[in-house]
């Protein structure tokens, strides 16, 4: 068992690595200029170039992938010369990068050609003083200084050559002198639990991602709790009555529900229950982060939609497996020896018939996630699916990659759970 676990863990990491590289290549090849999307089509090429440099997008692709994976503070640290640390901003709750100069978190700013030091005080305020740190001199004789700027990027200033940079503010693009020549946006990398910043929102991916994940998990869990008992029951009923009218009905209805796309089911449910009958909310608009707990009726239609799509599939699997088991000699023996039918079915058949569906159900979680994307878009439900949809439409690499990694973990994790459930139910299987 331990070997099986280790092997699955390794395989999970290999899978995650492959998926991340694949996505990276895809996004790299095809996404258009992100700067155009952020700054608008009327921005000038200089503005775009300056903004791309600030985001670190001018670095080669492999470099950015490595930064994403293991972080960029390693290579920035050797330039800055001080250890780089993060401190939590007490107002926004986000982590900000500082250089640790003799125990004081420090950033720098270039103003009117003079370098200023910003020191983070223990009470959270920032003290600004003229910098004492000297400039270094390169081979060409230009004086330069590597420091951390107020955005938390490692930057290289050159004395007397303040570059003109375009800074995106709330009021639009602003041109500033005294800009750095080179930027390395600092990040810890995914392996150290930092998904980076979303280009779309400018906030750390994890700030948005985890609340979204929570909403999706609630939706999926409720749907799962509704679907599974119902589908297994229907499957067993159909399987026991193979060939009779009730079996035909369950099978055909199940097939129809499975073959109907989620958006069609969703739209019909909205039409019937939301618009014509007005029983439940037709959309899932969250007026507060905890809206699902305050108003659980928001969940009804999304859950019903997911149920409709999943129900048929699981019921059909259970039916097929039940039919197969009911055909075996030991069931025939049990019936012939006069055992009550109910006991034959529930004591002998069901236990064996559930083996196959349980593995398939676990593999099917992938489908559930696919369904989630559509269902969340239809109902405007703020979950992971909607997050991925928005990120993919925008071409936001950090957001897509982070969400994708979560999905891979979910997919592989559920497969493992399925395998375990299978061993528990079927003692003949042992994982070496």
């Amino acid at each position, binding site marked *: 068992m331990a070997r099986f676990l280790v092997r699955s863990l390794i395989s999970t990491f290999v899978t995650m690595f492959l998926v991340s590289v694949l996505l990276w290549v895809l996004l790299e090849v095809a996404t258009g200029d992100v700067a155009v999307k952020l700054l608008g089509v009327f921005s000038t090429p200089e503005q775009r170039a300056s903004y791309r440099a600030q985001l670190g997008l001018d670095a080669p692709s492999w470099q950015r992938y490595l930064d994403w994976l293991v972080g960029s503070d390693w290579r920035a640290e050797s330039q800055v010369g001080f250890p780089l640390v993060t401190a939590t901003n007490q107002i926004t709750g986000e982590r900000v990068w500082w250089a640790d100069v003799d125990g004081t978190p420090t950033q720098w700013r270039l103003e009117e050609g003079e370098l200023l030091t910003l020191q983070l005080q223990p009470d959270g305020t920032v003290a600004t003083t003229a910098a004492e740190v000297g400039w270094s001199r390169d081979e060409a004789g230009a004086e330069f200084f590597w420091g951390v700027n107020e955005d938390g990027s490692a930057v290289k200033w050159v004395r007397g050559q303040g570059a003109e940079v375009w800074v995106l503010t709330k009021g639009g693009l602003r041109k500033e002198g005294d800009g750095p020549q080179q930027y390395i946006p600092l990040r810890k990398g995914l392996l150290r639990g930092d998904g980076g910043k979303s280009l779309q929102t400018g906030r750390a991916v994890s700030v948005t991602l985890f609340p979204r994940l929570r909403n999706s998990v609630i939706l999926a869990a409720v749907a799962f709790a509704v679907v599974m008992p119902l589908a297994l029951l229907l499957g067993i009923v159909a399987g026991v009555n193979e060939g009779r009218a009730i079996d035909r009905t369950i099978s055909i209805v199940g097939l129809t529900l*499975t*073959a*109907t*796309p989620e958006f069609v089911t969703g739209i019909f449910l909205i*039409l019937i229950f939301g*618009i014509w009958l007005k029983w439940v909310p037709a959309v899932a608009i969250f007026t507060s982060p905890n809206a699902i707990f305050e108003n659980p009726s928001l969940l009804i239609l999304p859950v019903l939609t997911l149920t409709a799509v999943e129900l048929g599939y699981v019921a059909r699997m259970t039916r097929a497996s039940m039919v197969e088991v009911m055909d075996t000699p030991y069931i025939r023996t049990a019936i012939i020896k006069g055992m009550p039918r109910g006991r034959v079915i529930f004591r002998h058949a069901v236990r064996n018939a559930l083996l196959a569906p349980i593995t398939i159900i676990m593999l099917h979680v992938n489908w559930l996630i696919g369904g989630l994307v559509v269902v969340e878009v239809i109902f405007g439900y703020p979950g992971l699916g909607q997050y991925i949809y928005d990120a993919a*439409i925008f071409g936001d690499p950090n957001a897509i990659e982070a969400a994708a990694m979560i999905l891979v973990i979910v997919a592989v994790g559920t497969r493992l759970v399925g395998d375990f459930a299978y061993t528990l139910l079927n003692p003949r299987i042992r994982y070496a």
Partner: protein
Amino acid sequence: MAAIQPTPETPLGPVATAGGPSRGRRLWSSLSIIFESRIATVGFLMVMFWIVIGLLSLVWTPFPPNESRFVQNLPPNTTNLLGTDNLGRDTLSRLMVGTQVVLLKTRVPVGDRTISLPIGVAIWGVLGSLTLGTFLGQIAGYRGGRWDQTIMQLLDAFVAFPSIVLYLVVIAALGRGDLVVIFAIAITGAPGVARLARSLTLDISTRDYVRAAETRGESQWYVMFREILPNARGPLLVDAMLRVGYAIFAIGTLGFLGLGLPPPDPDWGSMVNEARRFMFSTAWGVIWPSLAISSLVVGLSLLADGLREELNRYQR
């Protein structure tokens, strides 16, 4: 050498051999298995219905499908049997033409003109995944060892990933277009096909005729594609039929998400997406294309389901 032919075992019609029954007879014997099963027959009729509608729409529709000539968002009436959409276009005509892009034609940009190839996006996509998946699955299954491990690990990485997200990324990245959708369908479908092809290959490669071919020194490629592949055809084809259903399902979903086939030619998913905004005032616009997608996919599933049942009985 050519004298030794693989024994045909698939019920979908024997491999072409000289002196066998004529082509027409064999086609009929393949088709007749459909009518053995009631479910398959119903499915076949539903699919044929849409194929006929699509063929008809190539030559005739009640009104030009892309022309705004009526009042907007009309309910069904005597002129517009299914009503009109938000731009005052005839829904019936658009619904009919919507069949073409999934089943009958693919639009390929050549220079600044667009030419139409026969056979629809869904079918090309499935053919793509069938080709790719069979190729990979056969190599994995027949060569085994390191090839098997590498290919299956790669495919597992794909399978671990929800296909709708892959569609989203591929299309968001490469832009909308028939070829992109075909590519996305082919890529996402390939791992499933490969798994099936691999298991079939593992099974078939133990047969005597494969051993015979190996003994007489045929190349690996010959054994894979001339000996094993023809005998794995039946299950692969039934699986492909289901996949066409899923592909239509996926195209509809993509259209609904606003990432479908490029306008102005109608496709059902985009029609639902456009009509959705007016759902609170008039529901007809979403009902018709939704019904169309469901009925076509249900038809294909019924057909595949019935066929599989028949095949299983035949083999038993």
